[in-house]
């Protein structure tokens, strides 16, 4: 049963991240996703210090706010200060992450939030943390419940906002021309990424969320440029890697989130090799005079 809960949790994280990751990859802002996933750390710590628990709404709000602050800071440094965008990203997220680590170590005596948790989360403990709601949900672990709600919300968000998200990703000028605010949707997307990062934080950690966000979406992008299919493939690859990753970790006795990232990498490599080979074949057919004549 434990295996089921862990795989379910990982799959839910990869669904949330896989959907949002597609938009990050298409908008060429994958590294902003990376930056946000690091920057939520101080938000989580501050909210934790105020509320005293990791599973409060305050933590979600605080961390999401920090994610948005990170996006604003990057925009500010890029647009107003005129620092090249990659340098702006690198400066901002490292600073916020450093603040987070300092806060953790400063108050490390009395909290159960530690540095390991930042790195690779504690997905193995997911089945132990049962929901305490006083309803029939009590026999289920908390994380899968929260993540199911999140997946549902993200699906609704993408379903409702599909058209504006699609247009602002592919053709921002046209989007502006028909009256869609690109920056509104940009920040909505960034807020969604922040919330997802925070909720995935406990299970996969701040750093490895990036793998869940970017790798399956990029793998899907190798195979198709149709957005709907890309989102679907991205989720499928994410779930597949979660299942295989769990068994790899069990076999090696290592970090589950780490193993899932490795599986995502292998998944990417296989698809990459496949597209390379098939495109070479295609070229051969095209350049073969016997076939052309």
């Amino acid at each position, binding site marked *: 049963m434990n295996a089921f809960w862990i795989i379910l949790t990982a799959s839910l994280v990869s669904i949330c991240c896989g959907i949002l990751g597609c938009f990050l*990859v298409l908008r060429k802002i994958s590294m902003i996703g990376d930056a946000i996933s690091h920057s939520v750390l101080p938000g989580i710590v501050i909210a934790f210090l105020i509320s005293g628990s990791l599973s409060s709404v305050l933590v979600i709000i605080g961390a999401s706010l920090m994610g948005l602050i990170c996006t604003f800071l990057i925009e500010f440094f890029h647009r107003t200060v005129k620092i*090249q965008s990659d340098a702006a990203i*690198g*400066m901002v997220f*490292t600073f916020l992450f450093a603040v987070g680590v300092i806060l953790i170590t400063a108050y490390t005596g009395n909290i159960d939030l530690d540095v390991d948790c930042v790195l690779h989360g504690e997905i193995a403990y997911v089945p132990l943390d049962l929901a305490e709601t006083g309803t029939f949900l009590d026999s289920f672990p908390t994380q899968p419940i929260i993540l199911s709600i999140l997946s549902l919300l993200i699906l609704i968000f993408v379903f409702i906002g599909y058209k504006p998200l699609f247009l602002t990703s592919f053709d921002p000028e046209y989007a502006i021309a028909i009256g869609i605010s690109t920056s509104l949707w940009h920040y909505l997307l960034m807020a969604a990424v922040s919330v997802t990062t925070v909720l995935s934080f406990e299970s996969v950690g701040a750093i490895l969320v990036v793998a869940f966000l970017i790798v399956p979406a*990029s793998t899907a992008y*190798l195979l198709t440029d149709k957005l709907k299919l890309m989102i679907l493939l991205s989720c499928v690859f994410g779930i597949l890697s979660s299942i295989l990753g769990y068994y790899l970790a069990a076999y090696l006795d*290592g970090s589950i*989130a*780490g193993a899932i990232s490795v599986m995502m990498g292998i998944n990417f490599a296989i698809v990459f090799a496949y597209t390379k080979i098939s495109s070479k074949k295609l070229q051969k057919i095209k350049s073969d005079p016997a076939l052309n004549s």
Partner: protein
Amino acid sequence: MLETLKEFFSFTDANVTFVMIGSILIGASSAVVGCFSVLRKRALIGDVISHSVLPGICIAFLLFNSKNPFVLLGGAFLSGWLSIIWVDYIERNSNIKSDAAIGIVLSVFFGAGILILTVIQHSGNAAQSGLDHFIFGNIASMLRQDLYVLSGMSLFLLIIILLFYKPFVYISFDRNYAVSLGMPVRFYDFMLSSITVLAVTVGIQAVGVVLMSALLITPAVAARFLTSKLNYMLLIAALISSVCCIIGTFISYTAPSMPTGPWIIVVLMLLSMLAVFFSPSRGILINKWRQQKNYRKILEENVLKLLFQLCEKTGFKEQEWNISQMLDKRNMGEQQLKQTLRRLEKKGLVEKKSAEWTATVNGVIIGKRMVRLHRLWEVYLTQYLKLPSDHVHETAEAMEHILNPELEAQLETILNKPEFDPHNSKIPYQDE
């Protein structure tokens, strides 16, 4: 606090001296290397390398079962190099853009590193403790022999950069020129990437995996705001970074539970913000102030021009004008006009008589000059660029504030001191 400060900087504690020299060298070398990656617009390459060295370190440890710094650094160096190759390869051979390629490589390598690290930790191998120091870094608690190796490496990096300074500059700023000079560009690329990998492997021991890219990027950005000369930029970046490394180490020394790396980065960011905002040459504040000053100058010149044009209309019979007359002629805010007039009055360029304003002799000279430059430029555009006469006003409106006396003289010469502009208005010369 002061006592500890004295103790720290008195160099009586040999350990402290070593740590300090080590942090200066590490900070300086990564800052110098970082300048090149920032200038080549590959600022985040440091992030990829730093995340990617982890599996290399763990595998090296597994293979040789030793924590000898050379063994671990060797493993780190190899896997760091592998990550750069992968990023380039993915970028070049698929539709995936560079940011996603960076994200993929860094997260998968790091994931692999975490997996192997946890496997080692769970294996019960007693020698493994301390491997995770690489992730968060801590110079202050480093062994003496490790520090020797790291300082040596940093020194080596700095020497390499000094030796190959010229070619590195060429390939960073103007690759094509370097190719046309017949330089072995690929070799220098390889060298530059290698020293970046080396600098990262050394630097993560001070600040850790995640924060390493700040040690490369932030000093470079700060230095860029303070100078536009590359050699000064390298020097300033190295200096800023060393100072921050010392401060970070000092904080760790006074409060041993405090992590060195994050403090270095926080101090670095604060110092850099000082540079970004207050730099006397390129800071944001000075830029805002300059813009404001320039904006006011243009407003003042426009008002003087306006006064001149009003006088010109009446054949210089009327010389005094009230606010509403001025506003009729030129579309601008009333408040703005009044403020500008008051500033001009202080400078002695206009005078107020009851409710009417008139330009002084000096004011007339400036107003006249603006009108002259405006019209000369219109003539120039119609004659030399063959623009229709109804298309030249906007450009002239901007150029009249920019043209200097030398250009004015040249314009007069090449246009042969024309008498009228394209709209048949007379061009007023100074001696008339």
